[in-house]
């Protein structure tokens, strides 16, 4: 993947969180948390992983 095109990955978290009908339900629960809640908490982690991947793909040396 080229450097520029890897930035498109940053759109994935938007697709995963901006359509509430996808996840506004109670089942299946996890540790007693309804799906609505644990899905969105999980998305925090998934999004951070995606940002890390894009960081790695587009990394440039530190410049001061």
């Amino acid at each position, binding site marked *: 993947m080229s450097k520029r095109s890897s930035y498109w990955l*940053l*759109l994935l978290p938007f697709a995963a969180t901006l359509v509430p009908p996808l996840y506004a*339900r*109670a089942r299946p629960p996890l540790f007693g948390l*309804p799906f609505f809640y644990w899905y969105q908490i999980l*998305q925090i982690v998934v999004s951070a992983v995606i940002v890390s991947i894009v960081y790695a793909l587009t990394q440039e040396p530190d*410049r001061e």
Partner: protein
Amino acid sequence: MSSGTVIFFVLIAGVTVLGFLAARWRRAAVASLDEWALGGRNFGTVVSWFLLGGDLYTAYTFIALPALAYGAGALAFFAVPYTTLAYPLTFFFMARFWTIAKRRGYVTAADFVHDRYGSRALELVIALTGVLAILPYIALQLIGMQTVLEDVGLSAAHIAPVAFLIAGFVLLAAYTFISGLRAPAMIAFVKDTLIYITVIAALAVIPSHLGGWAHIFASAQSVLASRPKASSTMLLPGQYASYATLALGSAMALFLYPHSVTGCLSARNANVIRRNCALLPLYSLLLAFITLLGFCALAAGIKLTNNNQAVPELFVHFFPSWFTGVAFAAIVMGALVPAAVMSIGAANLFASNILQSFRARRERPSSELGIARGLALCVLTASFIIAVAIKPLFAINFQLLGGAWIVQIFPAFVLGLYTRRLHPVALLAGWCVGMSAATWMAVWTGFSSVFQFSAAGHKISAAIVFCALLANLVTAAVVTLLLAAFKTGAGRDLTTAADYA
């Protein structure tokens, strides 16, 4: 005095000393504006992580989100997608802004807008928007502090909380004046550590006492459903559009605030910001669980007259006295850190863009440091007066509106980093339309964060912050096309392609 009160005051006194000592951290003296306002633009990944975390996740958030969950149910969880999306967005544009800011010596977003569009008028409105949005935000930090102080058991000691609010304000103003951005950066280490400890302890203790999460959600649901104005722990179809637009609009607004810009520009290099966009979401996890504490307060049967007391009351209910001292100290520090950064950010806007006192940006005169310091004191004093003189509800409404205002700089600032196609006059027109639309919708709905449209028999609700930004963007695009049709010159652009690379 209880053991909690003693521990509370010992911790607060400790970080105050730290705030003053911060002036000597790494450098012998704070002698220039870059040193005072941006910590010498030299913070590495770890310091920036603590500073930005302490700066963005404020005490008010930690009080207000569980209060919203306690009062309105599932809608409060919009803060989770909001803080999830802020990072991919910021990863995209903030490193680019850092690069040009470093190269051309900018300390504010308005500095960039001035050079990019060659427009003094546009620079002024961008700066004014930042100041207007930040004043009520600082006031709310002070109000959040007061909420906690009322609960520390000061009434038993016959001392009015307002006396401590004044003491807190004076100390905050003094170390901000002396140490600049280094003070909140140093205090943030203590504050963030205590916040993590508090939330982990709360999660270890409270849910098991209340019979587990499944039981907490069931009890919270029955309390919410039985209220005269019923709500739910599950998002309802009628709320989908408001929820998504509230999350997106707030995410776009977060890094436009002066305190976010100041926090980011203090990074040593652009990679520090990019790395932190992957690391800061750890605070969002904290935020998600703190929001859920609002449901715990419902399940614990805590009855409140002021919803903002949900988390403090929950702590008093479940924690031993000494530990509530730690938790409350963490919340008060959570107010002090952002309040200091916010006042510095606003002072920079005043000095650099409104008073135009330091125009030659690459060789800034030493007098500018004195000016910025004095202005930071003025900003803090104004916020203190707002916090004490007006009703908390007014500050909350004003801050809510502040979010819809600050996002109006998105076209000129963020889009401006990538394209010069929008005409400066069109951006001004867009800003006017966006600001008016935001203000009108907020006043019309009695300061709600969502606005209800009805068209062709359908009703749809959307976040005001989002609708007003759309109005701004459409206006800016249409006016640009009109001006192009009349062959109006696009004005000067002082930046060059090399500045961004």
